[in-house]
């Protein structure tokens, strides 16, 4: 079953016309990690926003589990939303500094409604434990956590509604390597436990090369190439893909030449 099929279109804003996404046609395989790569400004975040229905495409549609999500009305949307979630970039900005950790993690449940305050609190504690944070920290505020811990909070919040599909928007950027590894392991564990489908948005090709099963390359609003990891990294077809891979290798070799650690 193909989980998604996106065909996209130009996106116009009032005075300035920005074609954020042009004829995007993307298939995302279920229960796999698909990576979306490209340079800054190529439209990755816009695509992500559309996928979790924070924005609507001007043309084309998004299909999820057989439903056309982009043409749903509010009621159907409310039902489908919990299944499609996103972990945002910049955990400090994505978490309300005045909320406690427990409030942050439980907020999606609170919005969906129907739970008592006690239940919310215990659910928040469970979620925190699941992502590797101690439930004792439930009353701490985001600024009291480290970057990696905040990212865990963001992940805990994202899985609160038991989604099927999770977009990870640069979730591993800005973290030091050991923390990255820990978060990565967490994500892979969660993927197995909850049968999640991931879309990882990243500009870090070496990371993508290690973990992604499928890769799509974006350039200036278009998807220029997509395929399995082996296909993209082994036999890049498009000129841009080759450029990306080359720059990645150049960086690595320069690093080596300079005598840096690998």
């Amino acid at each position: 079953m193909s989980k998604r099929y996106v065909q996209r279109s130009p996106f116009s804003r009032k005075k300035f016309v920005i074609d954020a996404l042009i004829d995007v046609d993307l298939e995302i395989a279920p229960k796999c990690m698909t990576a979306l790569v490209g340079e800054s400004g190529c439209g990755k975040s816009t695509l992500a926003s559309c996928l979790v229905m924070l924005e609507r495409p001007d043309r084309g549609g998004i299909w999820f589990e057989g439903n056309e999500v982009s043409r749903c009305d509010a009621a159907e949307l409310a039902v489908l939303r919990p299944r499609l979630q996103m972990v945002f970039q910049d955990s400090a900005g994505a978490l309300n500094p005045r909320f406690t950790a427990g409030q942050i993690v439980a907020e999606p449940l609170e919005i969906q409604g129907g739970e008592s305050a006690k239940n919310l609190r215990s659910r928040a504690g469970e979620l925190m434990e699941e992502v590797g944070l101690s439930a004792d920290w439930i009353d701490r505020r985001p600024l009291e956590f480290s970057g990696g811990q905040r990212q865990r909070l963001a992940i805990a919040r994202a899985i609160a509604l038991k989604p099927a599909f999770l977009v990870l928007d640069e979730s591993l950027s800005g973290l030091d390597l050991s923390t990255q590894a820990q978060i990565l392991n967490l994500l892979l564990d969660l993927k197995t436990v909850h049968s999640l489908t991931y879309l990882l948005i990243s500009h870090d090709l070496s990371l993508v090369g290690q973990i992604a099963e499928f890769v799509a390359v974006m350039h200036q609003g278009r998807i220029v190439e997509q395929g399995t990891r082996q296909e993209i990294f082994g036999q890049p077809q498009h000129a841009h893909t080759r450029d990306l891979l080359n720059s990645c290798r150049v960086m690595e070799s320069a690093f080596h030449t300079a005598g840096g650690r690998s």
Partner: protein
Amino acid sequence: MMPRPKIVAALIFLLSLHLAILFAGFVAPQDPAVQNRDFPFVPPTRVHFVDAGGHMRLRPFIYQWVARADGVYEYQESREREYPLRLFVPGPRYRIAGLFASHTHLFGVDAPAQIFVAGTDNYGRDQFSRILFGGQISLAAGLLATATSLFFGLSIGCAAGFYGKWIDESAMRLAELFLVLPWLYVLLAVRSCLPLHLSPAQTFLLLVAVIGTIGWARPARLVRGVVLSAKNRKYVLASRGYGASDSHLLRRHVLPHTYGILLTQAAVLVPQYVIAEVTLSFFGLGLGEPMPSWGNLLASLQQYHVLVSYWWMFTPAIALILVTIGYLGVANAFHQQLQSDSI
């Protein structure tokens, strides 16, 4: 987040002022409406610690003012009898906030002497008592008008910042219009189209409504700015992703950001609006006799002979200054707290 000592000190000062005014009946030694036709324009009673014989007394005392045989409004102290100053003295009956009735006053002297802390006016009414009772009116007007302005400012600013587009455009144009008008001119103009002779209660409400409604523009702009920046934060976006309704977003994420602004604006607006009421009453367009208001208490200074000879008629100004200092101190302290919080 402990409030800084500055805020606490400023708030205590302000609170004591307000308490004194709220309990005006208790603090004031006289009934403000009682006229002593025998004692018009009496200067403030002097409090003595040393008696005629040169002895020091522990308890301060006063002498009765007595009209001089020669001058019209000249008084001198009658050294016949000393009246010691007492605390918790029985006196005229009064009601606190229309609920409690009592007749104990904070301080006073035995009959038939009367203590005039701030002198009397041309009807022989005790200025000090009138200042305290007048404060109830002037302060209440300021507070209620501030509440009105902030209510409108919050609603319009939130709507403009949150929903944007044409609501924002039209609200901000309207705000510019209101900001460009000189408020006192507008106040007088609006006042002029309303009936001149209203009951005191009606006048009061009218005053509050007019003053409060004109001043919504600045708070609205500030609130809008805060709402705009809050609206664009990532966590608001994230909440939308979880299906949050507008009211949830407003309530949980956006409104808490406005509290700081609202408090600071309140501290700035209250003294301004008190001064507005005082100005209007001073010109005779606000509250008139016999209701005391700091404005109409000061109005007698417009007469030459009062201005020149009876300096104690200036005392309501002291009350006004104290209130202004109190609120501005709180506003400053809030502002500093806000700035250090947002770092």
